[in-house]
């Protein structure tokens, strides 16, 4: 036994000595965060996606400053303007006598630009809230299943399998039908249908991580199950979750827009892009700007999250690239 352990101890001691020597020589080791950030910034798609997302977050925060009108302000009686008027930008040649509405007005004679700007708040809130909720619940379920194994794992994962067996949007519609219309219920529905994705990702990571030597060491040192799970395993299972979560936000925003388009999500007069599309869908030929700009906003936001997610995946877990 002595002969077997001695070389290891020697090796460890030599390793520590090497690191100390390097530090003495002026070398500083980068933190994991710094390394990750450096990798992310090397990913062009992540930079573009992150920049767009940053822009959208700023738009959402400063919406009252950017938007010329309250999103629900009806211009009837305040301006001489017709409903569903075309975009009018004075510097681009629009008649100065006409009120300026850079994206036009909608069927209720409200400023479309203001509604698109405020819609950013709703969409980002939808994305972050639903995915946040789904990650918390999914992580707990996946971690418990993966770590405990046995019948608990079986029970949890079979329930997740059942949820995954339904098309997510269809399941969300069914849940909203039961809970009732409205943005809150739509958020809950989207979060519920997203849970299995995160539960599976976390479970897979936990199954892999829990076999690592440092987990065995922690167990040998007498660490409790909770300690091992939450301090040793979960922190090391997070990277794939970040990638999945970023991509999941894009899906959640699309699902929320779809529910609102169908009249099941955000209710009037909330400035939500899906609702704006749904309300004016009949005007696609007579007033195309009413569906084009909310649609464009959805596209840009989803693209931003997808680019960022792809970039994060490449940066955090290069093995998954290609």
């Amino acid at each position, binding site marked *: 036994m002595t002969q077997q352990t001695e070389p290891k101890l020697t090796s460890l001691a030599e390793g520590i000595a090497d690191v100390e020597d390097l530090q003495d020589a002026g070398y500083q080791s980068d933190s994991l965060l710094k390394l990750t950030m450096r990798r992310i910034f090397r990913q062009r798609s992540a930079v573009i996606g992150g920049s767009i997302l940053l822009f959208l977050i700023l738009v959402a925060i400063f919406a009252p400053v950017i938007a010329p009108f309250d999103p*629900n302000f*009806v211009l*009837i*009686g305040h301006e001489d303007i017709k*409903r*569903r008027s075309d975009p009018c930008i004075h510097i681009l040649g629009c008649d100065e006598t006409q009120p300026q509405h850079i994206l036009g007005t909608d*069927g*209720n*004679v409200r400023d479309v630009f203001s509604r698109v700007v405020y819609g950013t708040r709703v969409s980002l809130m939808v994305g972050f809230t639903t995915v946040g909720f789904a990650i918390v619940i999914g992580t707990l379920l996946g971690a418990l299943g993966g770590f405990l194994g046995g019948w608990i794992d079986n029970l949890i994962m079979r329930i997740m399998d059942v949820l995954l067996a339904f098309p997510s949007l269809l399941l969300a519609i069914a849940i909203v039908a039961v809970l009732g*219309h409205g943005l809150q219920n739509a958020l809950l529905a989207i979060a519920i249908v997203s849970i299995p994705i995160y539960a599976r990702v976390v479970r897979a990571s936990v199954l892999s991580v829990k076999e690592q030597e440092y987990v065995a060491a922690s167990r040998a040192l007498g660490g409790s199950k909770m300690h091992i799970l939450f301090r040793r395993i979960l922190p090391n299972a997070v990277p794939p979750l970040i990638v999945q979560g970023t991509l999941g936000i894009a899906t959640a925003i699309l699902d929320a827009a779809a529910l609102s388009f169908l*009249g099941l999500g955000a*209710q*009037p*007069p909330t400035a939500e892009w899906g609702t704006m599309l749904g*309300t004016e*869908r*009949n*005007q*696609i*030929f*007579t*007033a195309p700007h009413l569906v084009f700009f909310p649609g464009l906003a959805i596209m840009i936001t989803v693209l931003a999250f997808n680019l960022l997610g792809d970039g994060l995946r490449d940066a955090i877990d290069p093995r998954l690239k290609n």
Partner: protein
Amino acid sequence: MKNKTLYLLFAAVLTLSLVLAACAPEAAPEAPAAEEPAAVEEPVAEEPAAEEVMAEFEGKMVQAPSCDYGGKIDSIVAVDAYTVEFTMCKPDPAFPAKAAFTPFGIYAEEWLMANASNANQETLLSAPVGTGPFALDNWARGESITYKAYDGYWGDKPAYDTLVIRWATEGAQRLLELQSGTVDQITNLSPDDYATVQDDANLTFLPVANPNVLYLAMTNPPFDNVEVRRAIAMGIDRARIVDNFYAEGSVVPSHFTPCSLPNGCVGDSWYEFDAAAAKQALADAGYPDGFETTIYYRDVFRGYLPEPGLVAVEFQTQLRDNLGIEAEVIVMESGEFIDESTNGRLNGLYLLGWGADYPHVTNFLDYHFAAANPQFGEVHPSIYEALEKASQLGDPAEAKALYVEANNAIKELVPMVPIANGASASAALNTLGNAHFRPFGAPLMAQVDPGKDTFVFMQNAEPISLYCADETDGESLAACQQVVETLLAYAIDSGEVVPELATACTANADSTVWTCTLREGVTFHDGSTFDANDVVVSWAAGIDASNEYHVGNTGVFDYYSYLWDGLMNLED
């Protein structure tokens, strides 16, 4: 050689006889006789047959135990094969206008007796047998209904063979289909598309002169308080709604009933918009800071409400700005919405409207404000008593004072707020001959000429069923009307009542007995002959709740109940 000549001669004779035999059925005179009604082909030979029918005829009847049930119809009797007598519990001068309405269509007695049961409900609801110019060919659920011209039709036969009714809920899709020529006529043209159609040389713009009204209704607390209702009436800027959300030609109503109907808008005009007075009235009612409520609507295009969602949001805005009332907007499924609203179960405000079924003021007032209607909650004797008396007077001038009384009571009690009389339109390809849209009822599709074998009509929803005795929606009625005919009908260009299956319906002096003389030589699509018993059985199935054939889609038989003041033998 001689034998060969004989063989050839025999063969030639045999061949000739075979050819003649093969050609015989086409040349035979029996074929048209089988297709044409006997009365048309051989009027002389028809008379003995008719006499025979008369001699063997056993007339049926339906009668209420007494007139205490509150309805208008006492009995319907088949006096002889071609005479039906309607005895009323109270005078009803509007009988012809009502009897022309599609729900009172006549079905073949044998077909009804065979299918008006829960066991055969599917056939009852989807395969009607009537006397109309078209016989049902196929109902491809979710896609279309196909009809074939009925060869045995008693009137002018259609100029084409196949009628197809399709549907699309989206106005843009309907217009696109019309522009691309895949359909010949569309209903419910969106107001935003009026200019497009009017500027398109390939299309014909068809204004629809159907009187209608959109109203904002409210039933349950806090709207059971008349002061709250008056505040709402004064606090809604109706002109702003009509100016901004309705097509040109729409008007702000002065009364619940459109002015195009006699006695429709007599009495005091509706409240003027006055936000300050409305706010004060709401404060006096105990709600100085407003309250929270809900606005319900169904997302269905109607002439009286072309853009439901937008108008609902406009109400939401006005209630908040003018009265401090915060309202949530909720869209409901159409069937559920109708059921909940007409039974007075919606807690909040709701947008509902009415398009005239028949050209009489009773269609608007009596339907909505009758004593038995739970829609507006508490019923008001000051309204329904005047209406009951007025409905029994045939002379509009004589009834005017009573309608003034009823209209003033409606204004005073505000069971709802009339918002708009909407202008609406249909559109057709300019190649469509005799393109029209009647003021009352669906287009007479047998009278158009598409210049080809098929006419495709597109409406905005799929029919619920094709047994229209128990349906109320316009889409079902339009589909039924091509198959099933009524005793009387509405003219193509006005509300005038004209003969259909009855050549005439005449009343006694006080309009308590209506005698209808039926058209002879009419056959149903199943080949059976139309007679008075078909009328009695069809009406009995609708009006008599205890009748064994009183089976339909819902079993409510709304129009039988509302237009005749209730069903016979209806249990509580």
